[in-house]
């Protein structure tokens, strides 16, 4: 099982409902065996992508290829994909085993074989004891696992999951995230998981595809998305971030300065050729994470500026300070996150402090 071969490719896929476009020219490759999460706010078109792949909706333009073969026009019931629906869509008139075995039974698999594989699938999702229950007699988490067993029993090439955890409470959602991930590792099937919850995405995905307004904004590992967002939307949407607007200065090797209301900030551009290519004076943002910002000491030369602590919030393992920095006319609100200490924070509300972040922990996004 190589993660480098593409299982499924979307090429210039567009979708409109009537005259309302929901997807614009999407290109996306899903690698064989990976856990790919499509992340986006509601209305970003992420569910539509999933429905197009599953065959629940026809494409308006473009094509979908499976192993290089065009399947755009293949009917939904012929596609080797199965879906876990947001509302689970369990058949209320069938028992758990009836539900799980449905995909085999409609293909006229022999009864004995169905029974064996249903038992196996239920064992996998740890629901062996519930085979004869009806969906209405199960809890949310159990229904979720039935839906998963039902989707994977036909050994699909790809399992599509449409915000399957949205209806669960926080604790259960955490458990189910781990559970899904471990199942995916065990059966080595490709998962395409749609969610609007970025924490969920970071925790589970091999790669994340961030969508907004019908466009794919960035596709990469959680680490790449977190540390090298390629646009303002991803930088803001994906985790907490400080963004300071400014104009780009001339490239200095793997770094580039940006003139902002906080002065000249130097940020890393390593591995991001488009930032190197951007013209001098172009509008951009300096982006640095709250945990990268710290109280400046004598060793800090670059990226120094002063700010006033407006508010301090204790958040368990860390403490978050809200800071007002820069001149009154262009005041910036920044966040600083430090590990909490048992003897209280070194920071005081109302205090004016000198702040800094290391150039290699700052990055740039074009406006």
């Amino acid at each position, binding site marked *: 099982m190589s993660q480098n071969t593409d299982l499924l490719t979307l090429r210039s896929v567009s979708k409109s409902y009537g005259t309302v476009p929901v997807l614009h020219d999407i290109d996306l490759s899903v690698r064989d065996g990976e856990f790919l999460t499509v992340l986006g706010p509601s209305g970003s078109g992420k569910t539509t992508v999933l429905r197009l792949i*599953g*065959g*629940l909706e026809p494409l308006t333009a473009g094509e979908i290829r499976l192993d290089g073969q065009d399947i755009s026009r293949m*009917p*939904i*019931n*012929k596609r080797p*994909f*199965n*879906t876990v*629906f*947001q*509302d689970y*869509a*369990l*058949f*209320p*008139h069938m028992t758990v085993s009836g539900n799980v075995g*449905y*995909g085999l039974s*409609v*293909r006229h698999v022999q009864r004995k074989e169905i029974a064996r594989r249903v038992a196996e699938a239920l064992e996998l999702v740890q629901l062996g004891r519930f085979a004869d229950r*009806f969906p*209405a*007699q199960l809890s949310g988490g159990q229904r979720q696992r039935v839906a998963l067993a*039902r*989707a994977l029993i*036909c050994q699909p090439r790809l399992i599509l999951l449409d915000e399957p955890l949205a209806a669960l409470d926080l604790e259960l959602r955490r458990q189910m995230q781990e559970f899904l991930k471990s199942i995916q590792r065990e059966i080595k099937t490709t998962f395409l998981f749609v969610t609007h919850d970025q924490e969920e995405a970071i925790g589970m995905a091999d790669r994340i595809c961030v969508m907004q307004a019908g466009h794919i904004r960035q596709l990469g590992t959680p680490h790449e998305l977190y540390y090298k967002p390629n646009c303002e939307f991803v930088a803001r949407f994906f985790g907490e971030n400080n963004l300071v607007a400014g104009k780009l200065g001339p490239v200095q090797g793997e770094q580039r300065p940006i003139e902002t209301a906080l002065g000249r900030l130097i940020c890393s551009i390593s591995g991001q050729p488009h930032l190197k290519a951007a013209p001098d004076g172009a509008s951009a943002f300096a982006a640095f994470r709250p945990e990268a910002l710290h109280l400046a000491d004598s060793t800090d030369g670059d990226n120094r500026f002063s700010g006033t602590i407006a508010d301090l919030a204790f958040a368990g393992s860390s403490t978050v300070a809200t800071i007002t920095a820069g001149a009154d006319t262009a005041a910036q609100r920044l966040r600083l996150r430090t590990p909490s200490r048992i003897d209280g924070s070194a920071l005081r509300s109302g205090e004016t402090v000198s702040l800094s972040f290391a150039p290699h922990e700052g990055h740039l996004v074009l406006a």
Partner: protein
Amino acid sequence: MNALPRPSTIFLAVITTLVAVLLYSPLFVPIVSSFFTISHGDVDWSSPTLSTYRALAENHDILAALRTTLIVGLCTVVLSVVSGTLLALYYHGRRSGRSILQFIIFLPFLMPPIISGLALLIFFREIGLERSLLTVVIGHTVFVLAIVYRTVLMRLQSMSRTLVEASYDLGATGWQTFWRIILPNLSSAMVGGAILAFALSFDETMITILVTGTQSTLPVRLWAMMRLGFSPDINALVALILMFTVLLCVLAARFLIPRQMATERS
């Protein structure tokens, strides 16, 4: 409701009791008379008897009418459930033309039966269809169709669209999806609709009188007999029909409440 002062509650309870008595007294009369003989308007409480039931068993005229009613009822149920379900499936999720055709389906139920009945009477005459049990069945079906249609449509609307999608997604064909997913989920609504349709058909009198041929259903037969006065065995029949109707009501209530609601524990 808010807590009412006692006198008003008592007043309301009295009126409600009065209404219940008024509603049930017409039902009470034939039941009592089926077990006791009545002479000159006085019930002879001293001698309960089942003779009326024995006489009923020998009244071939009435039994034939009862059989006719059952046949008409069953045919009506089959026709109305099949076509009502088809119409509901067709109009569900379709907007164009739906409201107008839906209105047409509801017309015979909204219009006084005399108008629906007479319209059908003239229609049958114009197309050269003799009045017979067939015309009665058509009349009943047109009358009860709206009820079946509405019952099934409401169930369809409460059914999640993803059920059908999930079935296709798991590899089922259109037929398999229809027989194994859609139909089973509609079945209790269809049974509920069927019971209502049967109950309405069983008691339908006004349309039937207008479109029936020589064979008449029980209500029409009873109506014809009533001018001459009833023989006591009719009371026995009525008592039996009332029991049967109560049974149907209980069944209908059972089937019209969705299964999920009944089994949902949380």
